[in-house]
């Protein structure tokens, strides 16, 4: 555990020593703020319409019409920012030769991978923490239900974990961080749109494609439903990606 924390601490430090952490957190905050204002105006309008009683929705709910779509919008931000977080994790170590230090220290490959994952996850946590400010305003001036908010954050954390673990794996395959970043982005996007084609497919394929989509699993979380099905999906996704990373690092050793 000490070893994992040592690696995580080092990762986090290097994020904040380079502009990466500031760019990721700063731009996410700006984009999130933009989405927030956008949805707030929209919510404002539909609640006025509902109040006036002409043509508006039957009922308005701050959780369903504002917070849930907001959480889904966050996944757009993750799509662009998390490849930046993971692209250098292994690539940079390989390029500069510091991987030789890690692999000749009394650490297991798994500890290194966990440490790097934890470091990325902490940075992502800091990124999410910024959004608590906006959420604070909603709680101050409205009365949203807190349970769906909590489950929404859990969903976001797990989805980010999937992206991070996948990015970690891709970074372990190359010593060029631009390649790692680009491929990570492309694969994220693929997992994002993988079920777009589902409507044209037969029922079985449709189910499979929907199940594979990373974002599809977030929907229920944002509505306050914590379904084991989704937990299993996210946890197995993360575990499998981290496992692949360990294997990739090990096979690199044999190939030299």
């Amino acid at each position, binding site marked *: 555990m000490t070893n994992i924390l040592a690696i995580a601490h*080092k990762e986090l*430090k*290097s994020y904040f020593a380079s502009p990466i952490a500031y760019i990721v957190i700063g731009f996410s905050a700006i984009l999130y703020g933009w989405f927030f204002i956008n949805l707030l105006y929209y919510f404002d309008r539909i609640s006025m319409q509902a109040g006036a009683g002409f043509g508006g929705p039957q009922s308005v709910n701050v959780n369903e019409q504002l917070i849930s779509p907001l959480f889904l919008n966050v996944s757009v931000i993750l799509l662009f920012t998390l490849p930046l977080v993971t692209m250098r994790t292994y690539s940079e170590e390989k390029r500069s*030769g*510091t991987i030789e230090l890690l692999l*000749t*220290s009394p650490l297991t490959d798994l500890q290194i991978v966990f440490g790097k994952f934890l470091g990325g996850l902490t940075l992502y946590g800091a990124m999410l923490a910024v959004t608590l400010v906006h959420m604070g305003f909603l709680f101050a001036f409205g009365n949203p239900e807190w349970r769906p908010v909590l489950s929404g954050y859990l969903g976001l954390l797990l989805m980010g974990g999937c992206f991070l673990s996948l990015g970690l794996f891709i970074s372990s395959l190359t010593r060029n961080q631009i390649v790692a970043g680009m491929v990570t982005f492309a694969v994220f996007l693929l997992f994002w749109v993988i079920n777009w084609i589902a409507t044209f497919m037969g029922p079985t394929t449709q189910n499979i494609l929907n199940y594979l989509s990373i974002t599809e699993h977030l929907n229920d979380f944002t509505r306050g439903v914590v379904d084991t099905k989704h937990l299993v999906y996210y946890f197995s996704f993360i575990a499998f990606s981290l496992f692949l990373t360990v294997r990739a690092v090990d096979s690199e050793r044999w190939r030299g």
Partner: protein
Amino acid sequence: MIEVQHLTKRYGPTIAVDDVSFRVEKGEILGFLGPNGAGKTTTMRVLTGYVPPSEGRAVVAGYDIFDQPIEAKRRIGYLPETPPLYPEMTVGDYLLFVSKIKGVPRADRKARVAEAMERTRVADMAGRHCGKLSKGYRQRVGLAQALLHNPEVLILDEPTAGLDPKQIIETRQLIKHLGGDHTIILSTHILPEVSQTCGRVVIINKGRVVAVDTPENLTARLRGSETMYVQVDAPVAGDVRAALQAVPGVTEVSVADTRGNVANYEVNSESGRDVRRELASAIVSHGWGLLELRPLRMSLEEIFLHLTTEDVAQ
């Protein structure tokens, strides 16, 4: 302390290290000598557990590096060819991080870091970012990193590369000083380094060990017989040659160079027989002037070239 048995490492079809075996005793400093691409770095990488061997095994400090890597790695300090520094970390932070992953107990970390910085003379750079260090400092921080957890075994890949002459001397002294407490393998292609610091030398070429011995023995062994270089001031050169030839044990005398009355001779004698006294008294008793008498040995450079250029290696 270190035992390497029939170690072979292949990268696809290329053989980087081919059936290498050697032992290093506790406290010994072993020099690893060879031209670039001979397999020095690969051997060291196997010994430190960075790459697994294709065949054979390596036991370091009593632990097989492949079967018990964690235990073995706890006892190894390793300076790779390029010092593994994180450019965005300060020297102090970097060493603290390394002390953590090397398993130094929390209470000892600060003291160990300070000690390692002191020994490698990098304390004045503690607050500097690693990316902004000169090559000499980088090398020394790399060395500090290897010493942090006070390992039984030190494996140093070209520890003096990139240092200026003064730093080279300091680093060699440090390494010599570390020998005894630590078992050290260092690789180099600088020959004087080997004769100055190492107790024993392994010469490696094209992945194979071509010689293992002390620097002195290597120098002596490579000539089948002993050769003396004699400079004599005598009126008639022919007489000197005959007189030297008459000395018991001498097998061959050849004139290397003549300048006026002074002539240089190379005198071969039976292997292991020291004929210096007899040669001197033969010359002096004839009334000639003995200007110089010294054993002629192959320098390490010559041995190295001899062993590493083509079909030698007996």
